[in-house]
């Protein structure tokens, strides 16, 4: 029996989603089991308000999903101490639970940390443990996912960053279109509360907000979400962090668009992936000239995004799109001033060298559209692509 609230909740979407639902009802697509099992959190919809504390008994109703978070290595920042920790890191396990009411969505995030760090007001080298939840600003059928590292020029993200401080949890809501672009959204009503349990050495963070906030709606059946954790012991902050690939929250009782589901689940069906050793051979021939991966560092460092562990943070569909049509998924450079060119001599009285354009990952065409420096590999055969994807997913 439908609860009345739920019915109302559901009816709001009937109009907008009627087509999608029809599709799902009559279509034959079934998402592959590994996708549903490993990438999706089932969101229980409850009739009462969502819990606002970690200890709320309602959490026992929620399914617990465990995601692995890996260190961000696509771009390397410049703190030597933090970068030391990029080597041989084990993935961090983040336990995720989700509950929704008709109005709100709540997440419970838990992860192990031997030593809690609070941002303090009297040290220069201390970094508070932090956690973030990220959503695409728009998603659903017809949309691809944003770049998982803070979005891209076409697909912005909304991110909620909570930092443990001596005065409690400091939550910042930001919108971003790529590295370094995040801008605070002061009107957000989202809440986060982090607490550390000394007994089991776990951080627990509860986060909740209205399903609709400003122009950002999460009221869809399949909500892409990504997570990041910063460990103060490893001097982590900003781009030095552990992050997940895009995962999905599945609101129960709402049917997902089949096309969207199929697109998001790309790579999980038998036959989507090929032979990874063949893929490696291809990667060494085609990718290593510009990219670093798996100990292959013949290209100039930072000449292109580092692909070490890229498969751990990128979805198959993102990898596919990046290979076939890189200009559709252009990622911003981290601060272009990190490389300057000594070719031009510095002029008396003016001084200063210009940025080195060879490190730019893209150019702009006359209309201002970003064109990736990487050539499109659309000519790859289906088999070559599937081999490459198989390799990329496990590349170290």
């Amino acid at each position, binding site marked *: 029996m439908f609860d009345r609230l739920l019915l109302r909740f559901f009816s709001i979407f009937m109009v907008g989603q009627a087509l999608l639902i029809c599709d799902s009802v009559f279509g034959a697509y079934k998402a592959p089991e590994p996708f549903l099992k490993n990438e999706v959190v089932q969101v229980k919809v409850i009739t009462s308000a969502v819990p606002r504390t970690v200890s709320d008994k309602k959490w026992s109703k929620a399914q617990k999903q465990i995601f692995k978070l890996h260190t961000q290595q696509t771009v390397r920042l*410049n703190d*030597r101490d933090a970068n030391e920790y990029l080597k041989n890191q084990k993935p961090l396990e983040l336990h995720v639970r989700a509950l929704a009411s008709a109005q709100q969505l709540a997440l419970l995030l838990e992860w192990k940390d031997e030593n809690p760090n609070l941002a303090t007001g009297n040290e220069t080298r201390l970094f508070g443990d932090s956690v973030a939840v990220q959503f695409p600003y728009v998603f659903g059928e017809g949309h691809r996912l944003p770049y998982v590292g803070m979005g891209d020029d076409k697909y912005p993200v909304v991110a909620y960053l909570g930092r443990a401080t001596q005065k409690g949890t400091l939550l910042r809501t930001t919108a971003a279109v790529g590295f*370094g672009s*995040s801008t605070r959204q002061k009107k957000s009503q989202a809440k986060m509360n982090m607490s550390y349990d000394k007994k089991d050495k776990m951080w627990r963070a509860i986060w909740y907000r209205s399903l609709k906030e400003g122009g950002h709606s999460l009221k869809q059946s399949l909500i892409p979400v990504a997570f990041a954790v910063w460990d103060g012991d490893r001097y982590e902050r*900003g781009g030095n962090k552990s992050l997940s690939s895009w995962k999905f929250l599945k609101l129960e009782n709402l049917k997902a668009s089949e096309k969207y589901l199929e697109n998001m689940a790309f790579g999980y069906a038998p036959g989507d992936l090929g032979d990874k050793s063949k893929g490696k051979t291809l990667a060494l021939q085609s990718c290593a000239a510009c990219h670093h991966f798996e100990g292959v560092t013949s290209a100039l460092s930072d000449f292109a995004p580092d692909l070490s562990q890229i498969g751990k943070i990128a979805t198959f569909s993102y990898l596919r799109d990046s290979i076939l049509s890189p200009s559709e998924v252009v990622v911003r450079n981290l601060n272009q*001033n*990190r490389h300057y060119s000594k070719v031009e001599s510095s002029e008396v*009285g003016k*001084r200063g*060298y210009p940025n080195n354009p060879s490190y730019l990952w893209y150019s702009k065409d006359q209309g201002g559209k970003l064109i990736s420096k990487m050539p499109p590999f659309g000519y790859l055969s289906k088999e070559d692509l599937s081999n490459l994807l198989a390799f990329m997913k496990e590349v170290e």
Partner: protein
Amino acid sequence: MSKRQLAMVMDLNKCIGCQTCTVACKTQWTNRNGREYMYWNNVETKPGPGYPAKWENMGGGFDTSGNLKEGTIPGLSGDYGIPWDYNHDEIMRGAELAPRSTPQVGPNWNEDEGAGEFPNSYFFYLPRICNHCSNPGCLAACPREAIFKRSQDGIVLVDQSRCEGLRFCIAGCPYKKIYFNPKLFKSEKCIMCFPRIEKGLPPACAEQCVGRIRFVGYLDDEEGQVYKLVYKYKVALPLHPEYGTEPNVFYVPPLAGPKKFDKTGKPIEGSDRIPLEYLRSLFGTGVDSALETLKSEMAKKKSGQPSELVDLLIAFKHSEMFRIKAQDKKGTEKNV
């Protein structure tokens, strides 16, 4: 890159290490709100670890190809030193003067220690502010691109509304002249007293300098002392040019100083107390010719011939050391 570049030249031969510049800066900008430990201007004894301690070993800057290098962030307790104060209240009731906490390290911790064995020991003072570099390491390191150079004068500033206190700038600055304010959770640095510059006044450190060691002016002002010292006579050199950030503070290196003494206490002819190699390690290979020029120009002046360079360095009028005009709202210098 900025349209113009304001620069400072400091004549190390005239610096007496009185710290008036340090105090001028501190009282103006850094005695409050989480800046207590910061010294946007400090004067350190060289050779010596400086402030923060051993900053020259902390990385940052650019490699020879122009790529940003990794660096580390100094710690408040170990490298800067936690500021301490004294028991002034208790003294009034008969106690002896003592610090309230046990000082571990701090600015000017190694004052006048220098290097070498008596009677041939040596040191000199090195005042340091932000170099307002043409290719700043801090600016390049900021993932949020919150640091910028003002186009009218090249002053390097932190956009406080963009800064999120990530501190990559501190790792990126090889001079460790950008600081983290733990209270406000922002990075802060020497601002070249830009509110004074805009009014046509020199920075507080320069205006208050007792030894008249600091010249302030634009690098494209060919009539200015800064231009003449840097480009015409080439006696003003950047500190650690190998860091690759193109600093815009220049130093007239210390003349190698008095001769060494032999065991009997007699001066050794042709010897230099400060090893030339050490000066090269600070100011690059330009030191040799800079010192030659200084010596020959001084000899000229001594023999009664005119020397524009020596007259410049003497700085007969303090006010003439600063060639700055007030700026209008667009940042253009007003014709006064």
